Structures are given as C-alpha cells and as structure tokens.
C-alpha cells in the first residue's frame, strides 16, 4: 500500500499521473512535464513535497549534537531562520542522506530529510542521541505538509495567495526562513529558481494549494522537479550519491569542512580517503540520444558512469551528472555509450542553468 500525502485527491482532481516514488504515491506530471518545467523557469510552479519529512530537534545540547552529527558545520547558522545544506554521513564517510537544517532557536533546529530515507534517518538520529545527546527530543513531523513554490514570480504569487505573508517573508534572503502564523516560509528550493518552500499544518494544505492555483501557480510533478534540479546541478539522493559514495566524490566537498578542529561523524574517514573519482557535468554534443543514469563514460583517464541524465528543456539537449576519474576537467570531450552508439559529451562544471540563464 503506497503512502499518500494530504494533497493526493487534489493531484488527481488536477489530472495527475501518479507513480510510486520511494513508497509514496506522487504526481509525476499533470500533462506535459516540459511545459511544467518551463512554467518554473519563466513564471511559477508548485510541487507537493509532503513526502519529505521535517524532524524537529529540541534541547539544550541541540547545536553541539548537530555539530557532531552533520558533515556541514551548524556553527555557520548564527541568525534565526538560517538554513544549511548538509550530508549525513556514516563513520566510513558513506552518505546516509542529504538534508536541510534550519536554525529556529539556540535549543531548536528543524531538519528536512528525503522521503525514502526518512525512517532510516530517524533511527540513525535516535541512536546517535542515545550515545551523544542526552536530553535532546526528536520529533518527526508527519502532521506537516510541504509545498515548494518556485519560479521568478513565485514569491509574488505566494504573497497574493497568502494574505499577510509578504511582510514576514519579503525581507528573507536566500536560504533564510521565517515563521508566519502556522506557516514556516523558507526561501529555499530544488530548482535553481527563486521561490519559497512552505511548511504548514497538513489540514491547511489543500486550501493553500487551491489558493495558489487560483493566482496562476502551475501544478508541477516529480518529472519536472527532476529536470529542474538536474539543470540546477543538484544531486538526487539514491542516484547521484548513496551510502557507497562520500561527499568528496559526489561534488559536495564544499559542504564538508575538514580543516577545522570540529569532529563529526565520518570526518576521520574522509580525511584519510584517497579520492579517485569526482563528479562532473556533461553536455551531449550532436544529438543521437538522451544521456541516462548507468551509461558508461569513456575518458582519457579511464571509465566512469552517468549518475543522472535527462533531456534538458532549457538547453533543448541532453545533460547529465557523472562520476568520472579525477583528472577529467571542464572543456574535455568524453564518450558516452548509449545503446549501441558512442556519443560525444563536453565536460562542464555544474550548474547548467540558474535563474533561467544557461551557464554552460
């Protein structure tokens, strides 16, 4: 039996094609996923991301606990509402999940984790709390729904749909969040566009969805979410990184600070690791097919593999994230095995697209 979000009936009413995504029944598209993609790049689209889980951590030692539990440093969070992207690592450096941590108060943080990994993460945190975090209370918030509203006009449309929200959320800089009544409004996202991620009581989610729809925000499914995040050069957990890889070989060295004195789970392993592979972006040259995950990439320094590949609606061509031998550099041309053919691709540094502009 697939799990359903509070918006399940709203998706069906909007004509969604529903699919199994990590055990959740989610909309993949409501018609053309390319049109949904363009709506987010050019105007505003909304995604039900209620399958993801918010986890609240409260207690006096919350910061010290997260300083140890997360690969990125929560001490970068000094202003209330500030958000931080981080990996959650195993002691051997393998990636358990990627998440966003929000600083609410000195003794309260909110962490948002992926749907398919949510139970594993909660068990992991609970075990670590038992060992290192006496007095910290962990509360999974399945009572909350989450909506991502993304695009150049997303914020304006949220203000139109949610009266009074403008005053609370207009001053927010990117990667900042504020509470507005029952609504937690964060200027974050997974598309490379401006916008908000709204966390709210589940029972209010249908009303907000309808209000947003009424002001012209287009419902978008997981299909468009995938092409948007890939253009934005953002990893998908389970595909571009798993427990078998560490952040240094997944394009996430910028989220890991090995230089400071701070100890964290996985640090010792990362400091000792010899890194032979790296993540790069690929732009396919000359047509002939679409780059897909698991296709082999042939380079001068040995072979690698595509971790995510798709047709990019903005570039009108195929792009991919790939894990290849260290030494391959932007500007190189590599070969990708696509069925019985060998297609050429140019190596680039992601992102491919940000704020509607092509960067490669």
């Amino acid at each position, binding site marked *: 039996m697939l799990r359903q979000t509070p918006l399940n009936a709203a998706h069906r009413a909007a004509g969604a094609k529903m699919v199994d995504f990590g055990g959740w029944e989610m909309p*993949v598209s409501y018609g*053309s996923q390319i049109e949904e993609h363009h709506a987010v790049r050019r105007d505003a689209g909304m995604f039900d991301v209620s399958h993801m889980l918010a986890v609240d951590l409260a207690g006096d030692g919350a910061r010290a606990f997260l300083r140890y539990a997360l690969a990125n440093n929560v001490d970068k969070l000094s202003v209330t509402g500030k958000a931080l992207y981080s990996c959650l690592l195993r002691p051997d450096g393998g990636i358990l999940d990627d998440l966003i941590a929000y600083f609410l108060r000195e003794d309260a943080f909110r962490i948002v984790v992926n749907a398919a990994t949510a139970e594993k993460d909660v068990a992991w945190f609970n075990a670590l709390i038992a060992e290192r975090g006496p007095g910290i209370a962990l509360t999974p918030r399945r009572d909350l729904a989450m909506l991502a509203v993304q695009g150049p006009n997303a914020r304006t449309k949220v203000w139109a749909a949610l009266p009074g929200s403008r005053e609370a959320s207009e001053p927010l800089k990117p990667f900042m969040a504020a509470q507005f009544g029952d609504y937690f409004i964060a200027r974050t996202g997974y598309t490379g566009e401006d916008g908000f991620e709204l966390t709210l009581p589940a029972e209010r989610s249908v009303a907000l969805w309808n209000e947003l729809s009424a002001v012209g925000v287009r419902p978008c499914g997981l*299909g468009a979410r995938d092409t948007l995040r890939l253009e934005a050069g953002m990893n998908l957990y389970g595909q571009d990184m798993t427990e078998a890889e560490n952040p240094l070989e997944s394009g996430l060295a910028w989220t890991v600070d090995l230089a400071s004195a701070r100890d964290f789970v996985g640090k010792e392993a990362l400091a000792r690791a010899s890194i032979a592979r790296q993540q790069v972006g690929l732009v396919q040259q000359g047509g*002939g097919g679409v780059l897909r995950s698991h296709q082999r990439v042939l380079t001068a320094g040995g072979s690698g593999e595509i971790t995510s590949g798709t047709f990019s609606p903005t570039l009108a061509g195929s792009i991919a994230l790939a894990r290849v031998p260290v030494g391959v550099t932007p500007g190189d041309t590599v070969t990708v095995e696509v069925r019985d053919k060998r297609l050429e691709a140019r190596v680039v540094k992601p992102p491919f697209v940000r704020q509607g502009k092509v960067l490669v």
Partner: protein
Amino acid sequence: MNVPPNLKYTDSHEWIRKEADGTLTIGITDHAQEALGDLVFIELPAVGRTVKAGEAVAVVESVKAASDVYAPLAGVVSAANTEVTDAPEKVNADAYGHWLYKLKPANAADADKLLDAAAYSKTIAAE
C-alpha cells in the same frame, strides 16, 4: 483511451495500417505515447534494412525513459518518417496521425494475425 477500429496492433504498443499495396505503416499507440510522456528523440531504422518479427528496430525516448519499437512482422523497411525525428512531440500530439516507418512484409497475409482494436483494448486494460 483512443484505439481506432481500422488499425491492427501489437502487445508491445505499435499500431499497424495495411496499405493497398500490402505495405505496413507503423507507429506507436496513443497509450504508448501517454505512458512515455513528452517525446524528445526518435531513431528510425535505415530504409532497406531486413528485419525479423519482434526485432527492436526503432527507439523512442521521452524525458523520462527510452523505449524500443519492434517490428510486428518480418520484412524490409521501405520508408522512415523524418517528420517525427525532426519533431518527436508530434507523436504526443497525434500518435495515429504520425507514423514512424513502413515495412514491406515478407508475407502480407501474416498481418491478419495481429491484434485487432478490441483485443488491443483488452491488453491495455489489463496493464
């Protein structure tokens, strides 16, 4: 789901129209384009290629996935529709109005053994 009564079908979601000269015109069904989603790349067989029944002869790729298109019968490819390789989205807009390739079958009578509209409708209902 749109399943025109005058066409033949396969359980791998090709539609087949038998022309007066015995040539078969082949495309993918409305059900197939719907399941694949936005098409972005189509690769067609070379004209003159000899194919076996059930052989993968063409590829249709959507944003989501790549899918093979199979030869319904043995024969020789007699035409390929460059209109759909230039604009794959036309197949999404009208799957029966845009053929992929034509086949001169080794044995024209075999076409009568393909699924009719009623049988194909049952196939997709069972999926």
